[in-house]
């Protein structure tokens, strides 16, 4: 593990730059999901479900349904952007485009390349989150300036999901295999992390289970920030995510190295 860390240098930023450049070349297609997704969701859930459910109980108070799900959408946006970047897109660069084969002939190590991939995955989550915040702001459910905390926080959350993604990319036999982590981890988190309904309505055991899901903690922090407050208990969420991110990222790099260096 120490050799692995020693092989990571600032040169990994070159890989980040490469991915950023590609992102800007194809910016139109990249901006569609974070711009349209929240609008579609807020219309469907806000106008549809919201017509039935005006308010939901949350931490002993009642808040509007749109205000409730908006941070859930931001959190899942970060998860989707970062997770899919370092699963499908990294796999395409690794296997179909052979991009990494070319880069590792330069002074970059494979660890640099993977670190750059992770930094980019986290950045993509942050960009997606920022664009989505812009769209959601028009619904008047984000309380500034507190909500701005979401931006740096989304980078941390993004890095966690990027690292998790890289772990899977390191072991899947082919690109279709990503269906397993997607439907076993990502989709359940999307639905059961307090995104669309408050965890309070679940039985106690299910609440505890939900607390183990990383996305629950991302949603917690983002919801508090959206509501314009930053209570001290979000430090526990931050602690959980910070503690989990580093080992997950290192494991991801390790598994990729094991896969590629023969």
């Amino acid at each position, binding site marked *: 593990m120490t050799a692995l860390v020693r092989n990571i240098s600032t040169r990994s930023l070159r890989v980040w730059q490469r991915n950023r450049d*590609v992102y800007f070349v194809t910016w139109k297609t990249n901006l569609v999901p974070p711009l349209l997704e929240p609008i579609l969701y807020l219309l469907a859930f806000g106008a549809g479900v919201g017509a039935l459910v005006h308010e939901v109980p949350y931490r002993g108070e009642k808040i509007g349904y749109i205000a409730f799900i908006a941070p859930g959408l931001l959190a899942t946006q970060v998860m989707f952007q970062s997770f899919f970047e370092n699963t499908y897109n990294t796999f395409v660069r690794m296997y179909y485009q052979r991009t990494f084969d070319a880069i590792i*002939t330069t*002074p970059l190590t494979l660890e640099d390349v993977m670190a750059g991939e992770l930094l980019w995955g986290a950045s993509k989550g942050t960009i997606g989150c920022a664009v989505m915040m812009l769209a959601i702001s028009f619904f008047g459910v984000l309380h500034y300036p507190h909500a701005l905390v979401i931006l740096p926080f989304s980078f941390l959350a993004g890095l966690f999901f990027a690292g998790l993604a890289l772990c899977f990319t390191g072991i899947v036999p082919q690109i279709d295999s990503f269906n397993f982590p997607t439907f076993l981890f990502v989709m359940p988190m999307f639905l059961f992390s307090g995104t669309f309904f408050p965890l309070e309505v679940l039985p106690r055991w299910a609440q505890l289970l939900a607390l183990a899901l990383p996305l629950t903690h991302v949603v917690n922090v983002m919801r508090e920030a959206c509501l314009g407050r930053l209570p001290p208990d979000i430090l526990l969420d931050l602690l959980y995510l910070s503690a989990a991110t580093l080992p997950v990222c290192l494991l991801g790099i390790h598994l990729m190295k094991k896969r590629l*260096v023969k």
Partner: protein
Amino acid sequence: MSVVIEARALSKRYGELAAVDGIDFSIRSGECFGFLGPNGAGKTTTVKMIHCFAPVTTGDLRVFGMDVREKPREIKARIGVCQQEDNLDPDFSVKNNLMVFGRYFGMPVAQTAPRTKELLEFMGLWERRDDGIRELSGGLKRRLVIARALMNDPDLLILDEPTTGLDPQSRHQVWDRIRTLRRQGKTILLTTHYMDEAQTLCDRLVIMDHGKILVEGPPVELVRSRVGKEVVEVWGYPPSLLDHARQSGWKFETDTDRLFVYTDVGESVFQAIAGKYQVERCTVRMAGLEDLFLKLTGRELRE
């Protein structure tokens, strides 16, 4: 002349399989050195160890005097690698493929921009600088990959099967560029399974098979010493000719319907056959690398 690459008892194992099995070679500054061999001979594995990607199992491998295990970044900063598969960035234009690649070497834009222009002109791609990669033919892609490998003005250029899959015109263009680089004094390491390619480009070469080096030397000398000056090829020969060949002590080989006689005196062997035996066709030609190659590695199909 200084030594650029030095390998001693170099081995690479994948489990039970010895992909490279205790090879020794050294490549001198300014020469074009070839690795010739059938598929699976260990050429690409050797190349991967040289550019510090595949870890060495045992033995010693030094590039520019540095151990590949200790100084990979320093070594890679001074080499250019053109890999077998085209791994250009499909989302970037021709020009940006080079610009982005220069950045990996820590080159600032003030340096990559003129270098990109220079290399695209050298490779005849400047007119196509704004095109997408998908619009390029196989030959143009190959030239761009070679241009990319030259971004850092490497002291050693590694070309892994640079013309595989190209049409004859494209191959000749690539060869022409490689010869120009060679004249400019670049050290070049080339792997190929094309005999004509090795013969035209290489100052020295090794023939590898099953992870081992079978012979080493300048192509012309190797052919002369191991095969002879000329080859007499006989189509549709009678069995009695084989007896005659054996009695005369000729060096020869047969395949399904042909007899090959390796000799320094082609004309007299030809005379001995043409007048006296009933054959379909009999020709004398210069011995080439292909004769040596098949002699060493056999005629059976691989993989």
